[in-house]
């Protein structure tokens, strides 16, 4: 099938690509661009490992066709740090040990960043509920939640 021209802004850089319509945004990020920080878990939207931020909203990139993301802004885990400094959410995951094997971590970090951007004042219960679309098969949820609360606190106090 013919490839279509697509223009994606990924982590601030514009990419003009030719992609097959059946390629998901996840596949474009990983296979075409080479940004493998975004992970493929279930590929059915259930695990959240492929979460990226699309025009300011956290989405499961396995459920988006790359062609429909044309003209939009995408932030992946690779785009969070700036000037060699980690984003507060990344820093908090390191400090609390909010990861075990690390596979779910990029998705958790991107989902958490979007949640904190939207409202850093959520309670622990609200964050727990709002992160229900992300699964950690090592079951490291306690430390993950600690990391999210720590990052929210950090962002609240420096805002």
């Amino acid at each position, binding site marked *: *099938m013919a490839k*279509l021209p697509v223009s994606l802004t990924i982590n601030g850089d514009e990419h003009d690509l030719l992609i*097959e*319509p*059946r390629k*998901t945004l996840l596949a474009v990020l990983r296979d075409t661009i080479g940004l493998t920080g975004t992970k493929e878990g279930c*590929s*059915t*939207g*259930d695990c*959240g490992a492929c*979460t990226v931020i*699309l025009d300011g*909203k*956290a*989405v*499961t990139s*396995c*459920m*988006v*066709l790359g*062609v*429909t993301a044309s003209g939009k802004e995408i932030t992946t885990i690779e785009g969070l740090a700036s000037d060699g400094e980690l984003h507060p959410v990344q820093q908090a995951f390191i400090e609390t040990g909010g990861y075990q094997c690390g596979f779910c971590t990029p998705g958790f970090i991107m*989902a958490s960043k*979007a*949640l904190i951007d939207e409202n850093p004042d959520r309670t622990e219960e609200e964050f727990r*509920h*709002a992160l*229900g*679309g*992300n699964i950690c098969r090592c079951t490291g949820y306690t430390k993950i939640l600690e990391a999210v609360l720590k990052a929210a606190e950090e962002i609240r106090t420096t805002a």
Partner: protein
Amino acid sequence: MKSFEFFEPTTLAEASRLFAQEHAQLLAGGTDIIIGMKALTETPQSVISLQKIPGLAGITTEADNSISIGAMAKVREVELSEDIQQHHTALAEGASEIGSIQIRNLATIGGNIAHASPAADTVAGLLVADAQVDIASADGERTVPINELFTGPGQTVLTPGEIITRFRLPSPASGSYYIKHKIREVMDLAFIGVAAAINVDNGTITDARIGLAAVAPTPIRATEAEDLLKGKALTPELLEQAGEAAAAASSPISDLRCSAEHRREMVDVLTRRTLRQASERASG
């Protein structure tokens, strides 16, 4: 995923013309169709994205508090809309029950309804809001009440080329409530969805609507239960009668998730519970 031809029309007429052809599928939020295409349960030859057609998104409230929801409005927007939260609480609650936030940021209300799952989480709220569904095709437009839209699981009255454009909710009830009977907190399908909306005047129910999901081949209104309630005060005896009438209106199946007997019993219980909560909201 099989290959397909991708179209991104900018007018409804063009989208309708493309969609009227064989083996064509519409793409709204993609959260159902893309999973289906990966599983090869959906193998369209052409996929028609609706995202470039102007006027299909957005939620607007008119002076009389009637609300219009574009078919391409994201489920997350429906969930967070203050007007919908205030005037059609059951619909906002239903929207908040779908998948995860990541999925609700993609999924559209039009897709949730057009997919015609009897278990769709926005459908009970739309039923009790008496939603009018605007439909367009290359031949013109028509409006279908939501309770006449569905003909079976995955089936609607939509003909080839017809596209849902908008849901119009007339003047709201004074209180509504939605209960999703489920196991997991999030990322679960409804065993049963029950919504109720009622108007109360001085302790007397002037209007009542009950919407049931996942307990019949299509989402349904429990009209006999509704009729029992009108003109009366909501006593425990009346609640019991309404619950039984709603259960009698259901025709659930047994599946992996629970038995038909359990579903029917729970329709009774959850109808009473939603009515009580809707009534509290109506009086509050």
